[in-house]
C-alpha cells in the first residue's frame, strides 16, 4: 500500500517536473512549436497540389507534371526532415540538462526516457494538427488571393484535401516517432555529465590544402555540369533534370564546404580587415558556423533556386498570357452594329485607335465598302500559336482588290456565324450606296492597354459574342476570347509556380531561422563576454546583423546563380517566352520576402543573446 502511494507520488512528481520545465522555457517552446507548425503547414500546402493529380493534369498541358511534382515532394521531404532534425536538437538541448538533473536526483532512466518519448510525440502531434489547420487556412487565403489578383481559372482545386491531410499526418508522425526513439535512446545512453554540459566547444578541423583546392574545383565543375544539363534539356529531357539535381546539389555542397570557408579564412588572415572592430569575432563565428551549416546552406541554396525559379516561372507564365494574347490581334475588341449605349461605354475607355468598316448584306451575300479600307487601312494577324505570327499591316482597299477572294474570306471571319451569309465582294462608294440590302457596321478598337482594361470591355465583348453567335473557345478575332483560352491554359502553371515559390521560400527561410535561433543559447555567453570587455551595444547589434546576414546572403547568392543558369531550361524547351525578361521583378519580390525573414531572425536572435 505504502509502495503504491509512493509510486503514485513519484509519477505525480515526474509529471510536475516535466511541466515545470515547460513553464520556464515558454518562449523557447513557442519558437519550437511555431516552427514545427509552419513546416507541417507548408508540407500540407504542397500536398494539396502534389496529391491531386486530377488538378495537375487538368490545369496544364505538360505530361510530366506529375513526375515533377513527385520530385518536388521528395525534395520537400528531405528539407522537412532536415528542418525537423534541427527542431528536435533544439528540443533536446532544452531538455537534456533538466532531465540529467532528475537522473541525478534518482529518477529512473527508463521513466525519463518514457517522458521524453511522450513529450516528443505529443509536441509533434499537436504541431502537425495545428499545421494542417494552418495549411488549410493558408491555402484558402493564398489561392483566393492569387485567383482574384491574376484572373486564374483553376479546376479541381480545393484547400481541403483528404489525401493531403493523410500524407502529411503519416509523414510527420513517422518522423516524430523516429525522433522520439532517438531522443529516448540518447538520454538513456549518454553519460549524465555530458548531458549536464551540452555547451559545444568548437574544435579546429584541419583541412588538407590540396584536398581543399580540389574540393573547390570539384564544386565548380559539378555546378557547371548541372547548368549545362539544364541548358540542354531539349535534348536530354527528363534525364537532364536528374543529372542537374545530382550535380547541382553536390556542387553546392562542395562550394559551401570549401569555397566560402576559404573566403572567410582568407579574410581572417588579413589584419587590416580582421583587426577592425568586431570583425575577428564575426569571422570566427562564421568560420565555425559555416562548417556546422554546410549541408543546410547547400540545401537552402537549392531550395532558394527552386522557389525563386518557381516564382520567376509563375510570373513568366503570367506575362506570357499577356504576350500571347497581345500578338494574336492588332485590335483589342470588335463591336458589330454597336448601340448608342454601347458607344457611350466605348467612349469611356482609353482608346488609341478606332476603325469603322461598313458592309451590306443582300441576298445572303456580304458587300464591303472598299473606300473605308483606303481611308483606314486594315491590320490582320494570323495567329499560329507562336510569339511571332504572320502579320499584314495597313492593308488598303486597293491592295484588297488585288487579292479579292483572300481578303473577302478573312473579313468574313469577323462576322461570326457564317453559315447564313457568304462573301459577296468589295464595292466602291457609289455602288455601295445604291446596293439594296441592310447596312451594317463593324467597329474595331485599339486600347491603350488591353490587360488593364480587359475587365471593362468584358461585358461589351460578351454581348457582342452573343449578338453574332460566336463560340468563345473557337473565335480568334476577339482578343478577349483569345485571352480567355490562353489564361485557362497557362494560369494553372502560373498558380503552381507562385504557390510553390511562396511555400518553398517560407520553408527554407524558416529552416534557416530555426537553425540560427537554436544556436542562440550557446552564443549568449559570448556576447556577455564581449559586453564585459567594453563592446558598445550598437557594435554588438551590428556584428550580429552582419553574421546572420552573411548566413542568409550566401545561399541566396548561390541560389540566384542557380536560377540565372537554370532559366535556360525554359528557354530551350520554349515553355516560357523570354524567361529572362524583367527578371528583376521576381528576384526583387523574392528578396523582399527573404529579407523580411532575415529581419525577424535578426530581431529574435538579438533579443535572445543581448538580453540585459
Amino acid at each position, binding site marked *: 500500500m505504502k509502495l503504491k502511494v509512493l509510486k503514485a507520488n513519484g509519477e505525480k512528481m515526474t509529471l510536475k517536473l516535466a511541466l515545470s520545465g515547460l513553464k520556464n522555457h515558454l518562449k523557447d517552446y513557442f519558437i519550437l512549436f511555431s516552427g514545427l507548425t509552419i513546416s507541417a503547414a507548408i508540407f500540407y500546402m504542397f500536398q494539396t497540389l502534389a496529391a491531386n493529380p486530377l488538378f495537375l493534369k487538368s490545369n496544364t498541358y505538360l505530361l510530366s507534371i506529375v513526375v515533377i511534382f513527385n520530385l518536388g515532394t521528395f525534395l520537400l521531404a528531405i528539407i522537412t526532415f532536415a528542418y525537423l532534425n534541427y527542431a528536435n536538437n533544439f528540443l533536446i538541448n532544452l531538455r537534456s540538462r533538466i532531465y540529467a538533473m532528475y537522473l541525478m536526483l534518482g529518477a529512473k532512466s527508463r521513466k525519463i526516457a518514457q517522458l521524453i518519448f511522450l513529450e516528443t510525440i505529443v509536441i509533434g502531434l499537436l504541431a502537425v494538427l495545428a499545421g494542417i489547420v494552418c495549411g488549410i487556412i493558408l491555402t484558402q487565403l493564398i489561392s483566393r488571393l492569387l485567383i482574384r489578383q491574376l484572373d486564374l481559372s483553376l479546376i479541381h482545386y480545393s484547400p481541403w484535401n483528404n489525401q493531403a491531410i493523410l500524407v502529411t499526418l503519416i509523414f510527420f508522425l513517422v518522423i516524430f516517432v523516429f525522433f522520439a526513439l532517438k531522443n529516448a535512446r540518447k538520454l538513456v545512453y549518454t553519460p549524465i555529465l555530458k548531458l549536464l554540459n551540452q555547451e559545444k566547444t568548437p574544435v579546429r578541423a584541419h583541412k588538407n590544402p590540396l584536398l581543399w583546392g580540389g574540393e573547390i574545383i570539384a564544386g565548380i565543375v559539378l555546378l557547371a555540369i548541372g547548368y549545362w544539363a539544364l541548358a540542354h534539356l531539349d535534348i536530354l529531357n527528363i534525364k537532364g533534370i536528374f543529372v542537374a539535381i545530382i550535380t547541382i546539389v553536390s556542387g553546392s555542397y562542395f562550394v559551401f564546404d570549401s569555397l566560402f570557408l576559404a573566403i572567410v579564412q582568407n579574410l581572417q588572415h588579413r589584419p587590416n580587415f580582421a583587426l577592425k572592430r568586431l570583425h575577428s569575432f564575426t569571422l570566427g563565428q562564421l568560420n565555425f558556423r559555416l562548417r556546422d551549416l554546410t549541408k543546410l546552406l547547400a540545401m537552402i541554396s537549392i531550395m532558394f533556386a527552386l522557389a525563386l525559379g518557381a516564382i520567376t516561372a509563375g510570373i513568366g507564365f503570367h506575362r506570357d498570357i499577356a504576350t500571347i494574347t497581345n500578338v494574336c490581334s492588332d485590335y483589342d475588341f470588335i463591336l458589330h452594329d454597336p448601340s448608342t449605349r454601347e458607344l457611350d461605354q466605348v467612349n469611356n475607355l482609353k482608346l488609341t485607335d478606332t476603325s469603322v468598316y461598313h458592309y451590306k448584306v443582300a441576298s445572303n451575300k456580304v458587300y464591303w465598302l472598299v473606300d473605308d479600307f483606303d481611308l483606314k487601312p486594315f491590320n490582320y494577324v494570323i495567329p499560329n500559336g507562336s510569339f511571332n505570327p504572320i502579320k499584314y499591316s495597313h492593308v488598303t482597299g486597293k491592295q484588297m482588290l488585288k487579292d479579292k477572294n483572300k481578303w473577302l474570306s478573312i473579313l468574313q471571319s469577323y462576322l461570326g456565324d457564317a453559315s447564313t451569309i457568304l462573301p459577296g465582294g468589295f464595292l466602291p462608294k457609289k455602288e455601295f450606296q445604291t446596293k439594296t440590302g441592310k447596312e451594317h457596321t463593324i467597329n474595331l478598337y485599339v486600347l491603350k492597354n488591353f490587360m488593364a482594361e480587359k475587365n471593362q470591355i468584358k461585358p461589351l465583348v460578351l454581348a457582342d459574342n452573343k449578338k453574332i453567335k460566336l463560340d468563345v473557345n473557337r473565335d480568334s478575332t476577339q482578343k478577349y476570347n483569345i485571352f480567355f483560352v490562353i489564361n485557362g491554359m497557362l494560369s494553372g502553371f502560373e498558380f503552381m509556380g507562385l504557390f510553390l515559390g511562396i511555400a518553398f521560400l517560407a520553408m527554407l527561410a524558416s529552416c534557416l531561422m530555426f537553425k540560427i535561433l537554436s544556436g542562440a543559447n550557446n552564443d549568449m555567453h*559570448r556576447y556577455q563576454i564581449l559586453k564585459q570587455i567594453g563592446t*558598445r551595444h550598437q557594435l554588438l547589434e551590428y556584428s550580429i546583423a552582419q553574421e546572420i546576414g552573411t548566413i542568409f546572403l550566401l545561399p541566396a547568392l548561390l541560389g540566384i546563380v542557380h536560377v540565372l543558369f537554370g532559366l535556360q531550361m525554359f528557354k530551350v524547351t520554349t515553355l516560357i517566352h523570354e524567361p529572362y525578361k524583367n527578371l528583376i521583378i521576381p528576384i526583387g519580390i523574392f528578396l523582399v520576402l527573404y529579407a523580411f525573414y532575415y529581419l525577424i531572425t535578426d530581431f529574435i536572435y538579438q533579443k535572445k543573446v543581448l538580453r540585459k
Partner: protein
Amino acid sequence: MTSIVAVQQVKKVYGKVHEEKTVALKDVNFQVETGEFIGIMGASGSGKSTLLNILSTIDRPTSGQVLINGYDITKLRGNKLSDFRAHQIGFIFQDFNLLEDLTVEENIALPLSLQEMNPKRIKALVILISKKLSISSILKKYPAEISGGQKQRAAAARALITKPAILLGDEPTGSLDSSSARELLNTMTNLNQKDKISILLVTHDPVSASFCQRILFIKDGVIGKELRRNNLDRISFYHQILNEIESFES
C-alpha cells in the same frame, strides 16, 4: 599616493518594491591606492560577489558612490559605460571567459580592435604582452587546445592589453591546479611590482590572498577587518590570514 578606486557608503538591496528585501551590502567604504595589490576575502553570502559586480560595472549600487580613476561608475550609461569598461578596467574570471571561436591572438587583440587601433600596432602590442605573460608559443591556438593555466594567462593578456587603470580578478585561480595557480599569482605580483599595475582580487582562497599587500575582510555586507602584509614574507602572511579567517568568521 592617489587612490584609483574609492568606494563610499555603498549599499545594495535586492528585491522588488513589494517583495522581501535582501541587503547584500550595508555600508561599504574603502579605497585602493594606485599601484596597490589588494584582496577582498569573505565567505559565501558575505557580499563579496555583489561588491565585485558593482566594481566591474555589471551591477549598480542602491545608493553610494564608486569612483574608479576619477569616473563615478554609478552614473555611467550606454556607450559611456562600454567605453569605460574598454579603457579603464581589465577583468579576469574564474572560468577564463575567452571566446572559443577565436584564437588566443585574436582574443587578446579584440579590445584594441574595438578601439579601432592600427592593425600593425595591435600586432606589436599583442606580441609584447604575450612575451610578458609567456604565451607567445600558443598565439595561434584556440582556447580548447590549451591548458587552464595558459587560458588564464591569455585572459590576463586580454585584460591588460588596453593598459587599464585597474585589473579586477574574480577568483582567477579557482579553476587552476596548484602549480598553474602559483605561476599566475607570481605573474600578477610581477605585473604589480614592475609595471605598477593596480590589482584588486576577490577570493576566498587564503593562498591567493597571501600574494596581496592588503586584505579587506567582508562579512554580512560590511567590511569588518583589514589586514596589511607590510614586510612579512608570504608564508607568514598566509598564516596570519588563516588565523584572521578563523577569528573573523566565528
